[in-house]
């Protein structure tokens, strides 16, 4: 059962294809103009990679990760928007966002170190709802349900980026997050996290300090989620309202991790493409196609079939149009279905975590037996 070496060119080729996509777009048909939805995939990928640190590596189920994204989104908005006096640039504001996120992670992590399993899930669920309510009710600071806008767009060296530049910048953030999380996974930090997930008592008895490791996992998760929130709002130029960061967002992030492969960095990344891609690309395109077909039919209908009862076409235009011909309305149904099917047929996820991260070194010269002395 030695781990098969993965082809190192797969990630390189994937990254190259994604990076080249905006250059190819002018030559592609309308339904392949994917820059916009792929940028959304990138934002969710960063959120899910953060959640994977806490829930995948460390085994702490977090049902409120959207709260960290909300904290990040609002921290970024307050730091940059012209209605506040701070008005930081894009990069300093991201640094502030990461720090605020990490502090929020500590704030949730410290009191819940003794809480495990289902109980922790309930605590994090409550945390998510509380943060949302606080953001609504603290309207002197957060502008309540109005949201904070306008926000300056992402920029590099003071130059604001247009859509294509944002796409590359966000792709770069995904790549950096991926490499960073993987570097942690393959170091003592990640080993401590995984050992806690596998057997907390045994890892304690080997000298691992679970409290520290869990706090680091909470802070890493929260900082990445906050980063994703900041990237989301800076692209939309508005914080949106607090209810945008509700339970659905947490669940989508969790679905990405579970479908991709819980505890697997590559799997989580792929999961973001599968789940958010299905929602923002496949379903949207399908809706467009079906919608234009239905409109054509409806336009042709009275002439072609003047004698038919009016309610038949009414049915096509209303109920059938809203439900059957609008697959974007099915998204939660499909998310649920994807989860159920995964649980039945492939509970470990599409790309389960590799069992092995450290290869043994070449055999040492003979006689090296007194190792522990």
């Amino acid at each position, binding site marked *: 059962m030695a781990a098969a070496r993965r082809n190192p060119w797969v990630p390189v080729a994937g990254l190259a294809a994604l990076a080249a996509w905006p250059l190819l777009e002018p030559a592609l048909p309308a339904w392949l103009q994917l820059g916009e939805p792929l940028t959304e995939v990138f934002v969710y990928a960063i959120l899910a990679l953060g959640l994977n640190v806490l829930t995948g590596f460390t085994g702490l189920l977090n049902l409120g990760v959207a709260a960290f994204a909300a904290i990040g989104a609002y921290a970024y908005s307050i730091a940059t928007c012209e209605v506040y006096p701070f008005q930081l640039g894009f990069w300093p504001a991201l640094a502030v966002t990461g720090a605020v996120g990490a502090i929020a992670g500590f704030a949730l992590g410290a009191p819940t170190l003794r809480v495990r399993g289902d109980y922790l899930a309930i605590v994090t669920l409550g945390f998510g709802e509380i943060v949302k309510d606080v953001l609504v009710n603290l309207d002197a600071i957060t502008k309540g349900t109005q949201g904070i806008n306008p926000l300056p767009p992402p920029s590099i060296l003071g130059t604001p980026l247009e859509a294509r530049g944002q796409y590359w910048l966000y792709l770069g953030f995904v790549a950096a997050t991926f490499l960073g999380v993987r570097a942690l996974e393959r170091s003592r*930090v990640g080993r401590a996290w995984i050992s806690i997930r596998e057997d907390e008592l045994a890892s304690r008895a080997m000298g691992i300090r679970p409290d520290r490791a869990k706090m680091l996992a909470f802070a890493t998760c929260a900082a990445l989620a906050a980063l994703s929130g900041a990237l989301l709002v800076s692209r939309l130029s508005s914080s949106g309202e607090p209810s945008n960061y509700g339970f659905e967002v947490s669940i989508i992030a969790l679905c990405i991790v579970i479908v991709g492969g819980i505890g697997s960095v590559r799997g989580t990344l792929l999961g973001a493409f599968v789940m958010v891609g299905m929602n923002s690309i496949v379903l949207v395109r399908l809706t467009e196609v079906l919608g234009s077909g239905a409109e054509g039919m409806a336009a042709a209908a009275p002439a072609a079939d003047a004698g038919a009862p009016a309610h038949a076409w009414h049915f096509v235009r209303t109920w059938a149009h809203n439900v059957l011909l609008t697959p974007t309305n099915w998204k939660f149904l499909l998310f649920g279905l994807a989860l159920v099917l995964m649980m039945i047929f492939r509970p470990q996820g599409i790309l389960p975590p590799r069992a*092995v991260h450290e290869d043994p070194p070449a055999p040492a010269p003979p006689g090296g037996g007194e190792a522990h002395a």
Partner: protein
Amino acid sequence: MSAILEVKDVTMRFGGLVANERVSLAVHPGEIFAVIGPNGAGKTTLFNAITGIYEPTEGDVLFEGKPIRREWTAADRVRGLAVGATSAAAAVLALNATALWTAAINDRYVMGEPFPWGGALATVPATLRDAGFWPTWFAAAAAFLVGRLAFGAIWRAQRRTPDLVARAGIARTFQNIRLFGEMNLVENVLVGMDQHFRSGYWACLFRTPGFRRERGRMRRRAFELLQFVDLADEAAEPARSLPYGHQRRLEIARALATRPRLILLDEPAAGMNPAESADLMKLIRRIRESGVTVVLIEHDMKVVMGISDRIAVLQYGKKIAEGTPEAIRNDPVCVAAYLGTEELG
């Protein structure tokens, strides 16, 4: 000769159940010391009490003459005050966030004009005064107390945790093997070596040159430990795919990786065939030769009688005998209590 491990009158009580009653042991450096007894005699409970999984109801465990216990240091005092102060600040903020922000920012900032930063913090005292002296200070004092007391309570509950015991130099294996099944053998050993790593979070994140050097060094050392327990050929396998006897040896390697001065082995020969337990005896002797004192719980009398310098016998939670293998073999109390007629038949 002073004892490396001294168990003094340890009693472990779980409600009405007395698992250990005034058990005393003294293990000397360089010894192989066995604890035997029938099932349910309290041997594993004693190990758990030594390694900090349980806190003895009564009695002391001394390692190299000292109890393993966190002391309340100046740093803990500062930490406790900091936790209290943070709680107090959080409570005041939670009650007055809107007023503080409005006075400091909203009332003073006109969009498009430069913000007078200098006066922003100066608004805080007036705002808090307007909020009412008593509610604010009462909340701050209450939150400070709660934070400080919670810190104290958690600190007290963590005075003698298994990680502290492991870091002090006592390693152990488990009766029901507790390996990290999804990790390979090298990684399992590397978990045991965690406390000897120097690179921190940021070094790991950015894979600094120091981190890479240390990783190479540690991996080689882990591999040498696997050679020491004869598992080098399977180094890349996930631990759960190993046969039972090999898993027991991997647990020993993982425990040795913490660089202990005392190792507690809980039934290391369980589930091994005679050839494997003969190898195990050699391994235990090599561990002792490398300078690590060994205490083991074992049911396999061949192993116990073959390698132990001294043996303690537990029955119903009490120590009923202690001595050399020869003495235990000939002690009628022990034979009646535990060895029985079938074993020695």
